[in-house]
């Protein structure tokens, strides 16, 4: 069986796809390490963060390898942008609204308990990977 050598474009697309998979795995491991710091993953957490950063850089550099990968990248980034903005603006607003409502009934003042800025990065990256996977499975439209 003969195989034709891969074109430069095909190699870049494959690099992008492999980086996407590795970035997603690094993201899952990084989240697990964040919530289970006493585990083995907690010990290698800085390494996971570096792996996540490196794979995202590879994804970014190869995002225009092909119009299909560019479309996948666009879907992921645009969804992540909207989710991040909504999360950072609406969650504190909703919490303030509920706290104000509760305070009016109980008389007990409540501060901000949801540290949105702490969760923003996992939410942003998670929504990017979910949208990217969704676009691969269901289409880029």
């Amino acid at each position, binding site marked *: 069986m003969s195989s034709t050598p891969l074109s430069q474009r095909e190699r870049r697309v494959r690099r992008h796809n492999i980086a996407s998979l590795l970035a997603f795995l690094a993201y899952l491991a990084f989240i697990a390490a964040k919530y289970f710091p006493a585990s083995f993953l907690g010990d290698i957490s800085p390494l996971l963060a570096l792996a996540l950063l490196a794979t995202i850089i590879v994804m970014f550099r190869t995002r225009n390898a092909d119009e*299909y990968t560019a479309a996948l990248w666009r879907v992921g980034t645009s969804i992540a942008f909207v989710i991040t903005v909504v999360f950072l603006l609406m969650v504190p607003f909703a919490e303030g609204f509920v706290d104000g409502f509760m305070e009016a009934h109980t008389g007990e003042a409540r501060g901000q308990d949801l540290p949105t800025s702490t969760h923003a990065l996992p939410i942003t990256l998670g929504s990017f990977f979910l949208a990217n996977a969704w676009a691969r499975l269901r289409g880029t439209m």
Partner: protein
Amino acid sequence: MKNRLRVLRAEREWSQAELAVQLDVSRQAVNAIETGKHDPSLPLAFRIARLFDMPIEDIFDDEHD
């Protein structure tokens, strides 16, 4: 958008990889277009039409999803 790319490719007995080389896109892009998961850009649609020597509207159907 529905298209006849898979049929036209099969008629010429080309693999997805061979078609991808001729269109200067990746095999994944050809697969995504054939399965309706990605609508090609206008320049790519023109390249496809020129390659098969057919009008674009004979390859792509924008009225039936």
